[in-house]
Each structure stands twice: as structure tokens, then as C-alpha cells.
């Protein structure tokens, strides 16, 4: 028997443990998982859309300048009626003067109150029959009829010349119904308990000159008195100076998004570097670093805000964004640093870090590979919350009068302005508040998505 060796030398099979799918880097993997998260992706699109809104928006043809004041359409809500009648330019009114009939005994109400000419948003002129014995008159205006509870509304003026029995009202007249009441005054300027009322319906008017200046017509010659024109279109209405809300929201986004995104990004970056250095190195360095952070935390924000404004020579006209940003970064990083340090202290004691260290991992590797990825969750949550808080800090500074300089708008200051008129003109509060909410929501959902995507432990579970 010729025994042949049926054994062959073992050939080292090198590809048994070959990874069949391409190796995914940490970030690539995170991106794949982020893409799978529909909410996070939508949020990302919203944020990009907001960016376009602020950069491209003002270039659109139907968006007027953010500083043009349309004093005929102050605080008008979206979709308000825009027709206006052409009238002659305003000319002062000499009024009506009569001989004062003498009289004693109790003052009576004027026999009648009448309208002189047409009631327009330019002026409402009223006159009344003289009251014997009256030494003057007080004129009231209300938006509803005074009867039955004698609600005369707001006093417009005192006419303290007895012979004058007329009054011209120009105060913020809207195209609506008004009720003017006249009360006679006695020798000491006190009201008699009687009044007479006239109701008036004001129409919106504009002068031909104004119409041309606003670009509503080509030349004044085309317009005759009594013609109707349509005032400028404001898609989202106007603010307290008749400025276009849409345009101001677009310009305001520049300030709010810039402050809201750049400031948190910067101070959290500083915080991560600082906190991880402190947490990882530990010992004396950690103590010195953290004491310095305590010191910064305790500095008064407002005072340093003012100081920075002066250090950076905030003169008239500068918007004051840069010093605000710097002040926020310089004064806000310690919170992030403390948070990161706390996490690092915790992770430093974890088993996998010790294992990695035993295997000879160097410090930078440990920080980059274990520390930062494992703190990402908390950091991202902090960032998504720092965005609204930065937007609000700007708003708070506007609230106490130290925000961006006018006429530069910001969502925070628009919110602040809108708050005062929220009962009468809610659109001035709702729109900026809505934009802040959308931004905050988008950042939050994106942050959530990122947290899940970047969480190294999630990786092993799929």
C-alpha cells in the first residue's frame, strides 16, 4: 500500500473574518441614521428654508423695504381692506366761532352736534350749537355709542374758549365708525353731567401727492379727487409704524438666527474644549479651570453687556450685534463647560475607558473616541436649548432697551413690541412668536435626531 499522505499543509485562510459590508465610519453611520429619521430631516429642511427666507426673501419683488413707514396703514392686520379715496392735501381749518349767549343756571347739552365736511382718516371736523353759560367744552370720542351707560370714551381735548364751538380731530383716525360727544364745562373747567353725541363714519383717504410718493400712481395728474386707489400690499400686515411685517420678519431673522445659532455654537465649542480638558486632566488643573469658570458665571451679564457696547465703540447706527455676540460667548460658556466636565468625570470611570487605556490608548484618542462621542447626547440637547435661550437673551436685552439698535428688527424685539398690542393687534405678536417657535421646534427635533444618530450605543442595537 502506498500510503499517500492525505494531509495537506494548512493554508492560512486570511479572509474568514473579512467584513462583508464596507466599514462605516462613525459619522457616516450617524448620517445614515439621521436620514432615516423623518422628523429630524424635516427639521433640517425647515432650518434651510429659514436660511433662504432671510437671505433670498428680501430680494423678492413683492417684499417692500423693512424701514419704509406707511403711516396710512399703521398696525393693519393681514388682508385688511386697502382701498383709499384721493383727497386734497390737508389744510388747517379755522373752525366755527359764535357769539356766546349769556346764561345762568345749570348747563344744558348742546342742542346738536354736526359733522363739517366729510369724515376722513385725514381729519374729522365737528361743530355744535353753543350752550348758554358754558365756559368751554370737552370733546370725547368712542368706538361704540355712549348710551346707555354714558361711556363717552376717551377725551380728545378741552376747548377752553367759550366762543369756539368746533373741534378738529386728527388723532389716529381709522376707517371705522366713531361717536363724538361734546360736554359743556363750567367756569372752573368742570364737566356738566350732560352731553350730545354725533356718530361719524370715517373713510380712508390719501392725498394724490402721497399716492405718487408711495408708488401707487405714476403721476399726480392721473389722479382726480374722489378717485379710488389701492394702498400698498402688506401680506402679513404692518407694525406700529406702518412697516411691512413680512419684510421685518425676514430682516429680523438675520439678527435672531445669527445670534441664536452662532452664539450657542461658539460658547458650547469653548465649553466642550474647556470642560473636557478640565475633566480629563483632572487634579490641580481641573480645579484652577473650574474656579475660573465659577468666576465667569458670577459676573453680572447686564453690566458687562454695557461695557462691551462701549469697548467696541457702539456709535449711532451700528446694530450692536457683534458686542452682543461676544458678550454672550464670553459670559455663557461656563455652563456648557461644567456640563461636559461632569459627563467626562463620569465616563472616565467607565469600564470601556479603563479597558481602552490598558490597551495603550493615548489621551487624544480617548478624548476623541470615547469622551466626546459619549457626551454628544447631552451636548446636543444643550445646544438645541441654547438656541432659543440666545434668541431670548437678545429679546430680553430689547425689553430693557439694550438690544440691537433700531431700525434693525429682530424677532425678540418684535415680540416685545407686539406684546403691548396683543389685545388689539394680535398679528404683531403672533407672527414673530410663531417664527421663534418654528425655529426652536426645528432645532429641537434636529437635536433629537442627532442625539439618536450620534449615540454610539444605538449603533449596536440595530
Amino acid at each position: 500500500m502506498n500510503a499517500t499522505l492525505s494531509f495537506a499543509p494548512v493554508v492560512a485562510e486570511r479572509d474568514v473574518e473579512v467584513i462583508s459590508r464596507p466599514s462605516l465610519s462613525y459619522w457616516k453611520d450617524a448620517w445614515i441614521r439621521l436620514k432615516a429619521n423623518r422628523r429630524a430631516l424635516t427639521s433640517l429642511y425647515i432650518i434651510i428654508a429659514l436660511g433662504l427666507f432671510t437671505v433670498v426673501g428680501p430680494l423678492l419683488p413683492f417684499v417692500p423695504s423693512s424701514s419704509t413707514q406707511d403711516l396710512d396703514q399703521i398696525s393693519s392686520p393681514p388682508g385688511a381692506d386697502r382701498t383709499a379715496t384721493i383727497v386734497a392735501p390737508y389744510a388747517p381749518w379755522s373752525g366755527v366761532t359764535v357769539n356766546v349767549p349769556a346764561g345762568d343756571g345749570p348747563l344744558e347739552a348742546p342742542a346738536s352736534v354736526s359733522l363739517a365736511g366729510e369724515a376722513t382718516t385725514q381729519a374729522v371736523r365737528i361743530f355744535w350749537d353753543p350752550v348758554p353759560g358754558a365756559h368751554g367744552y370737552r370733546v370725547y370720542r368712542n368706538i361704540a355709542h355712549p348710551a346707555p351707560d354714558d361711556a363717552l370714551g376717551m377725551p380728545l381735548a378741552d376747548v377752553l374758549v367759550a366762543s369756539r364751538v368746533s373741534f378738529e380731530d386728527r388723532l389716529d383716525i381709522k376707517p371705522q365708525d366713531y361717536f363724538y360727544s361734546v360736554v359743556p364745562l363750567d367756569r372752573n373747567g368742570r364737566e356738566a353731567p350732560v352731553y350730545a353725541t354725533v356718530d361719524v363714519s370715517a373713510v380712508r383717504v390719501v392725498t394724490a401727492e402721497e399716492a405718487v410718493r408711495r408708488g401707487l400712481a405714476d403721476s399726480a395728474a392721473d389722479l382726480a379727487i374722489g378717485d379710488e386707489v389701492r394702498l400698498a400690499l402688506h401680506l402679513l400686515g404692518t407694525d406700529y409704524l406702518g412697516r411691512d411685517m413680512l419684510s421685518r420678519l425676514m430682516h429680523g431673522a438675520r439678527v435672531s438666527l445669527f445670534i441664536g445659532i452662532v452664539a450657542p455654537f461658539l460658547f458650547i465649542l469653548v465649553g466642550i474644549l474647556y470642560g473636557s480638558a478640565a475633566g480629563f486632566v483632572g487634579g490641580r488643573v481641573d480645579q484652577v479651570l473650574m474656579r475660573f469658570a465659577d468666576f465667569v458665571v458670577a459676573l453680572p451679564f447686564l453690566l458687562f453687556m454695557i461695557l462691551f457696547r462701549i469697548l467696541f465703540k457702539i456709535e449711532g447706527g451700528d446694530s450692536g450685534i457683534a458686542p452682543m455676540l461676544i458678550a454672550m460667548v464670553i459670559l455663557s460658556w461656563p455652563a456648557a463647560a461644567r456640563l461636559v466636565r461632569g459627563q467626562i468625570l463620569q465616563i472616565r470611570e467607565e469600564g470601556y475607558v479603563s479597558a481602552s487605556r490598558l490597551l495603550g490608548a493615548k489621551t487624544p484618542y480617548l478624548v476623541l473616541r470615547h469622551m466626546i462621542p459619549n457626551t454628544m447626547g447631552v451636548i446636543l440637547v444643550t445646544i438645541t436649548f441654547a438656541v432659543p435661550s440666545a434668541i431670548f437673551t437678545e429679546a430680553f436685552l430689547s425689553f430693557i432697551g439694550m438690544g440691537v439698535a433700531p431700525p434693525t428688527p429682530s424677532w425678540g424685539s418684535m415680540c416685545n413690541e407686539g406684546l403691548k398690542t396683543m389685545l388689539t393687534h394680535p398679528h404683531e405678536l403672533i407672527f414673530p412668536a410663531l417664527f421663534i417657535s418654528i425655529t426652536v421646534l426645528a432645532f429641537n427635533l434636529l437635536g433629537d435626531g442627532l442625539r439618536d444618530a450620534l449615540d454610539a450605543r444605538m449603533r449596536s442595537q440595530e
Partner: protein
Amino acid sequence: MIRYTIKRLIQGVITVWFIATATFMAMHSVPGDPLMNDKAISEEIRKNLEAQYGLDKPIIEQYGIYLWNMVRGDFGISFAQENRRVNDIIREHFPISAILGILAIAFAGLGGILFGALTARYRNQMPDIVIMFLVILGISVPSFVFAALGQLALVKLNAFFGISILPVAGWGTLSHMIAPSLVLGLGTMAFLTRLMRSSMLEIVSSDYVRTARSKGLPPTRIFLRHELRNAILPVVTVLGPSIAAITTGGFVVELVFAIPGLGRYFVQAVQQLDYTVIMGTTVFYGAFLVFMVIVVDLLYGLIDPRVRLE
């Protein structure tokens, strides 16, 4: 432990000294001074005033006098309220801010931990979605809007019931505190809820929780001893700085609800450039904050045995 505490306290004193110095320098480098007023005053009257407040001395001497007085615990007399000592202002108004702040923090902390744990537990289910929606609302509305809306709601509420259920503004009784502390704590609570949720989600998938579970420990014990205790860590860390946020945010609430707290005095002092009140309140708040940070660090060591205090 005691050695560590003493060491931290000494460091704290140095920190406060730094704060005092930085504030002093910042304040005096801002143009204008507290003696300026709407109606201009003559050189002679101004000289009298400067002499009275010691502003005629060289700045370095003012600094020395100031530090010495601070060590003795005397912050001087306010410029804007010429009859009141800054010590009295702090003593009378800080407790009010503190009560408001403690209540707001308590509200925020308890609510945050509870809602955070709840949302983590019901992740992507109805409670999670509803609470997170409210949280988003809570953080996307500025505090001054909240304060104004909250007060308006109280007016409507009282008008609806025809009796005064909660006072609209003012200070003094428990009922005065509820609305402002809720408004003040809302933002922080939203923040803490999110933080708690995120840290809870990490903890429940950690090895030691799994181990504990497989060991068959009672769920309540796992929850309280392992999950909650660990998940609270990041929350405790941000509580310190949250106190700072609440004391400054308190200004708006104090203004709207007519509460005589210290926050109002501080903002007024900065706007009026009231040197002594700025210095007094800054150093006081600084010392307070530094102290809180030390307490938080000590708490940290107590909650998490892995963090060694040395």
C-alpha cells in the same frame, strides 16, 4: 471631605474677590456716573455730592476703601435711594427673590425630573408627545410674554368666577407666589425635562441596569437606586447655573407681578449706574453663586460615588 470643603471655600473667597475687582473696573470704565441727573447740577453742588460719596478720591483709593468696607460687610449707601444702605436693600429684598427662585427651582426640578422620567418611559407614545409638545411651547415663548399672558389669564380667571382666586400682582401671602413662580420656573422646567429624558434614555440601556434587572432586583429598587440616581446627575449639574438664570430672569416676573425682589433693584441699578448697589448686589450674588456651585459639587460626590472628591 472636610478638608476638601475648606479648600473649596477658600477658593470661593478668592473668586469673589476677582468678581468684585472685575465689576469695579467695568463699572468705572463705563462713561457717565451716578451723580448725573435729568437736571444738570452746578460745579459746586457736584463737588459737594462727590465729597459726600467719596468720588473725589483717586480711583485706586476708592477701590481700597471699597474692598476694606466689603471685608467689614458694609456695602455703603445707594446713590439712587439716598437714604438706604445697600446692606438693607439686600437684606430686605433678597429673601423675596430667593423665595421666588427656590419655589421656581423646586417647581422646575421636580416637574423636570418627573416629566423627564415619564417621557423617557413612554418614548414616542402619547404622554411623550404631549409633554414634549408642551415643553417646546415652554421653551419657545420668552419669559416676558409668559408673564404678561399669565397675568392676563389670572384677570380673566378672577373675572370668570367673580371672586379673587389668585391675586393679579403683589406680594405677601402664599397665593401671591404661585403664579409668578410658575411663570418663572416654566422655562427651566422644560429644559430639565429634556435633559432628564435624554439622560434617562441613556441610563436604561446601560450595562449595570441590565445587570440589575437580570439579577432580579425589584423594579422599584432598580428605578430609584440605579436609573433615577444616575439620570439625575446632569440635572444636578445644570441646577447651579439655572439658579443664575432664574435670578436674572426674575427681573421680568418681578416687574410684571409687582414683586419687591432684588432682581428689579439690580437692573435699575445698572441702568442708573448706581455704583454701590451694583457692587453690593454683584458681590452678593457672586458669593451666593459660588457657594451654590460648591454645594452642587459636594452633592455630586454624594450622589455619584464614582466621582472622587479630592
